[in-house]
């Protein structure tokens, strides 16, 4: 996930593709951990990326969509929806809390996400964390350019 985050940050499409290929379908669970992390990452990039950086989600989404045959049907369906911008209510609540809520609200929303599934929630949170770092770095970069 960290490798994917770095590849996205430097817009390295080839590396993004290979990271996604190794994440999709990776790990335990009916929705493998790698898929859950990707769902969390996609949710943040789509909902929280600054107006100037839609390219983050645009870079990641299609790559994920190409790799869906590498995971189980149910998980592939979740990923397909996530690429199209649809994720679970708890993830949406977390994104909203991160965007506009207090620290306490964000913490509570994160706890809700972790509480879902056996490990899916925690795996998704890993993706969320990665996404938040990316969004923050991109916003900082924009400010530097503007200055």
């Amino acid at each position, binding site marked *: 996930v960290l490798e994917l985050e770095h590849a996205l940050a430097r817009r390295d499409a080839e590396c993004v593709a290979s990271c996604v*290929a*190794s*994440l*999709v*379908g*990776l*790990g*335990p*669970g*009916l*929705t*493998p951990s*790698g898929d859950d992390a990707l769902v969390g990452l996609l949710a943040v990039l789509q909902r929280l990326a600054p107006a100037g950086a839609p390219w983050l989600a645009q870079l990641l989404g299609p790559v994920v969509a190409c790799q869906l*045959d*590498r*995971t*189980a*049907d*149910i*998980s*592939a369906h979740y990923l397909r929806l996530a690429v199209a911008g649809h994720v679970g209510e708890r993830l949406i609540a977390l994104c909203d809390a991160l965007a506009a809520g207090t620290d306490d609200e964000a913490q509570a929303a994160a706890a809700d996400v972790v509480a879902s*599934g*056996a*490990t*899916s929630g925690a795996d998704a949170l890993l993706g969320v964390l990665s996404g938040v770092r990316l969004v923050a770095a991109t916003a900082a970069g924009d400010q530097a350019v503007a200055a």
Partner: protein
Amino acid sequence: MTAAHVVVANAYRDSVALLAISSKLLSLHGISAASVVMATPANVDNLVDAGLADGLTASPSDLVVAVAGADGAACEAALAAAAELLAERPADDGGAVAEHPPSSIQMAAMRDPSLNLALISVPGDYAAAEALKAIKLGMSVMIFSDNVPVQRELEVKRAADERDLIVMGPDCGTAIVNGIPLGFANAVRRGPIGVVGASGTGTQEVTARIHELGCGVSQAIGTGGHDLSEAIGGISMLRGMRWLEDDPDTTVVVLVSKPPHPTVAAAVLAQAAGMSTPVVSIFLGADPDEAAGEIVAAGNLAESADLAVALAEGRPAVRAGLDVDGDARAPLDAIVDAATPRQRFVRGVFSGGTFCFEAQLVLRARGFEAWSNTPVAGNATLADIATSVEHTIVDMGDDGFTQGRPHPMIDPGLRDERLAQEAADPTTALLLVDVVLGYGSTMDPLSGLVGVLERAQPAAIVHVCGTAADPQDRASVVERLRSCGALVAETNAEAAAWAAYVATRLAAR
């Protein structure tokens, strides 16, 4: 060190189950590694890298179980154990692992052809269609949903009637069938009294009272609130009466309703006249002294239970009335003596619609008009349901309060807020409250209410509708209410009669 694996094609288990199976396999003797994962390329690569799955071929929607252990025998044993664990179906709340619950009435009927009652609780627009499906499969129906158009109700009830089936509802909140409470219903022992009720909380008051009097209920059949209108003609009540007449376990029948339309009342009376089973009626708002024919008419809900129990036990059915006698007066006189000159009004805040209705009737019969969001004849409609004036008795379960909110019997929060508002009003002399126990109702009816009552300056009279067998335990609820100063009446009618007594004395000051 050897490894073995097995592929289960197109197998889905939720993650909790997969992880549980992995850890069980790891705990087996001689097993050093175990993995139960979806056979995605990424996972297969990892398994192959780890030497757990040489030569594995599978598709991403297959499940792979791979183990490594001391010898071949340990591995084989682990795979056999995995197969067994994967085949297991949890007995009860297995979540996603359990058998898929039936997703249609037809599917349920195919699984168990002996089913003969369907409980329908879908939005009103769809309830009639679902009911018709069930009726065509030979099932009687309880329709919990409301907002079913009258024309559709008639259609559904006629279809059922043609097949000797019954439709309980629409808007039927309470029934007890073969001892099983459905919807909002109390834990009531089985016995000789059959109830047919058009009112949910009315049926709860009658059945709970029967239990508290030591008797029991054979069946409590709901009809929904519109059944006794001219348009529907009492189809469900008449059928319910016939069924109870034919039921060898039923020796007395109680009918619970607001007054039927005159043509329907005539049909009900005619049917009662032809029955060998005695019939007690409580038609709220009708004068019991004007009752005709074979029906034993009661003056209030609880009294209908008293009369029915007397009949079931071979005693004469004598109406007791609602006089506030000597013993009951002392605490009520104390309320009057403690009231400031400004404290003049009774404020009733109800969660049970029929309790609100009956309380208004009792006060009305003693000369007190009250404002309400659901006024009885002779009472006036509140201009603003959020603001009480003079004597006010509100039904917090009515649509005006419950839009987008749970019913106060499920979540008493709004009811408690309203009580706090009334308690803060310096003109409030007395709070009149119902607490409805039983299945369907909140398990915590008191925490908000007690907070209000402990702070409340005005006194409170509370009626608790429930039985000792209810999950909320009536005795401890009553004790808690008394401990914070509330007067607890035995019945809703008694609570209202007490309130009327206080109001009479306050008015005479």
